[in-house]
């Protein structure tokens, strides 16, 4: 029998806060992190809202606890800030005290900084300090800098499956624990806003000029966000022997591919349906036992129809309470799965259902609508967290209250 996997530490930074407590505070106060960018050089600066972390890189160096500045990208700094909190919360002062793996997720690596100097990098007549960013473009750079700063030397990996990347990082970590390769894993993702990604999604006509409206009839697209989040996962035997404080149990997960279209989900949400169904089956929980679903809910035309249909197919007339927290954080791509996994833990710990901001009008294709006001004092025992991405990549996680 494979070991159970527990969540014993969490750390994050998003547009609504530099740590988990600040995020919780803003969620409770229903305060969105959306606004306009201060740090990306784009013609859409005053046009396309984003959820940006409200610190320049100098401030992030302090938050991340880094004194040497050479070659550290914003992606790395966001990641380190979240990583330090996760380790602190799990009571880990030295990751070397037990074999600990690190699975990171990233969609564009250090593009945030390399795109600013790219044309100098490729110009043989130019030389200067920008050269220190040359090797930060790929996705492994941030992972290794985070690993080297906090001291991970055991298994490390970086996953990139677009918007489901960090959900897959959590899954991979949990599976390594269950197969006995490692007693403890730190998993999550980091994502900094870039001109590259903003133009990418905008070229797909997927970006809303207003604050995004998930599951609303009038929605027209997503808003991008940035941030990072990591969760410490431990095997049951390790957590008990280590006397770890158990925050929640990671009971189920599934990664399924739709094989439908490179960027669009299938209209009936086949992949979302399969991922949720299989993740729930693994968790051993029934449909009725699901108290809350933190949906992918990007507010693109296609995602919300597809995901909504999948919810109706799986749960029939009894779709659980659900909401998208993307209007708070924006769509943080590689970090989204881990950020929302932490929100799932917070929902369980605090008995909260977070509101789906900006919702006014039910979608005509669906019979369901999201929670729009903060709900407190709710008994939340099992949460499904969805992350769906390009390439038909669908990931669902089930996070459950720790019952001993």
């Amino acid at each position: 029998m494979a070991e159970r996997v527990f969540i014993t530490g969490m750390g994050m930074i998003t547009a609504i806060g530099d740590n988990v407590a600040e995020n919780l505070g803003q969620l409770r106060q229903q305060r969105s992190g959306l606004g306009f960018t201060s740090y990306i050089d784009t013609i859409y600066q005053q046009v396309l809202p984003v959820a940006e972390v409200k610190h320049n890189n100098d401030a992030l160096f302090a938050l991340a606890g880094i004194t040497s500045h050479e070659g550290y990208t914003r992606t790395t700094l966001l990641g380190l800030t979240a990583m330090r909190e996760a380790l602190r919360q799990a009571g880990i002062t030295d990751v070397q005290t037990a074999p600990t793996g690190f699975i990171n997720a990233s969609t564009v690596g250090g593009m945030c900084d390399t795109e600013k100097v790219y044309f100098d990098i490729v110009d043989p007549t130019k030389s200067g300090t920008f050269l220190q960013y040359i090797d930060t473009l790929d996705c492994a750079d941030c992972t290794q800098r985070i690993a080297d700063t906090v001291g991970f030397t055991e298994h490390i990996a970086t996953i990139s499956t677009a918007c489901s990347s960090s959900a897959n990082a959590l899954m991979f970590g949990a599976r390594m624990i269950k197969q006995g390769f490692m007693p403890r894993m730190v998993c999550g993702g980091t994502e900094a806003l870039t001109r590259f990604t903003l133009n990418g999604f905008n070229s797909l006509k997927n970006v809303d000029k207003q604050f995004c409206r998930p599951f609303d009839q009038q929605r027209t697209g997503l808003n991008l966000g940035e941030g990072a989040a990591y969760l410490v996962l431990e095997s049951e035997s390790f957590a008990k022997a280590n006397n770890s404080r158990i925050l929640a149990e990671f009971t189920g997960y599934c990664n399924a591919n739709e094989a439908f279209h490179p960027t669009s989900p299938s209209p009936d949400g086949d992949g979302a349906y399969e991922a949720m169904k299989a993740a729930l089956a693994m968790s051993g929980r029934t449909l009725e036992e699901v108290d809350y679903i933190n949906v992918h809910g990007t507010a693109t035309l296609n995602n919300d129809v597809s995901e909504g249909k999948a919810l109706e197919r799986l749960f029939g007339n009894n779709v659980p309470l659900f909401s998208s927290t993307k209007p708070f954080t924006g769509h943080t791509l590689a970090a989204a799965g881990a950020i929302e996994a932490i929100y799932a833990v917070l929902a369980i710990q605090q008995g909260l259902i977070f509101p789906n901001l900006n919702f006014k009008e039910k979608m005509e294709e669906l019979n369901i609508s999201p929670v729009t006001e903060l709900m407190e004092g709710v008994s939340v025992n099992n949460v499904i967290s969805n992350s769906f991405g390009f390439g038909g990549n669908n990931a669902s996680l089930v996070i459950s209250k720790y019952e001993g």
Partner: protein
Amino acid sequence: MKVKCYIQGMAAISPQATFEGDVFSAPLVHTDSNLLTCMEPDYKPFIPANSLRRMTRLLKMGLTTALQSIRDSGVEAIGPIVTGTGKGSLQDTEKFIREIEQYKETALNPTPFIQSTYNSVNGLIALQVKGTAYNNTFVHRGFSFENALLDSMMLLAEGAPNTLTGALEEMTAEHFYIKSRIGFWKSTPTDSRQLYVQQSPGSIAGEGATFFVLTGTPTAHSKAALTGFKMLYKPTEAKVAAGLAEFKENVDLVLTGRNGDSRYEHFYRQVDTLFPGVPQLPFKHLCGEHDTAGAFGMWLAAQILHTQQVPAQWFPMLEALPANINRILLYNHFYGEQHTMIVLERV
């Protein structure tokens, strides 16, 4: 790590004639440009013309190699699809960066953005083979393919009937220049055939797409078994030696990722010390240095075990080999940071 799986099918597009024909009669392709470029096949038998038009080079190479490995395996229904790529489609990434600048962020074609996404080849493969199972992409330099391999072995242990496991990497002129600025390549043009005698900082660049169909149990069709596996991140020389020592038993041949880079050659010298008398073959003069060169090494090892032959023209340095090659140790590292050891056995 305690692992075991079997290679049922495989295919490789590389700078050598690995994709079609008989590798044993293939001449050695060499270069003095410090860049070994893939010998690309005709893609038309694999990819419909209307799709082919839109696809960039790495996508075509990746998808075609994946499909060929499935054909080679005889497996009908492909399960999970797991790949590794250090850089993804560089051509698309570069194009989108350039077009953002050129068109001042307006009226952009989204195709290069979509194709630059690291898991785009995975998505294409899934579409083409209707692969609705697990799908994952690892993007970690010299650990990209090996993490895909580890993931695949875990999936097989969890009950997957098979996995399609591969690696893909391309080198563009622009990226070759970028990496030359931080010492990745040798500073003077080097004949790839002289790679191992020209010890100096840097190596020669390469690229390739390599795919395997893996299963948890052997069949009559199995080409080789993977029986040992280790990944070491930024290890000391002593840690490398200890890792290699774990795989010391009954090794008939060691394939090394030696690449003529004098800065990191000392790691490979551990093999000389620990495996005295065991023949060694380096493979980077065939595929060049790249994030997922280890996948090419594994393809070569499986090829040798399966056919009990070494492509003689590729290895002018060939020493006497044992009559039977039953076990091969593959040791590779990427610029001294990601070290991988894989043991393959004859089935």
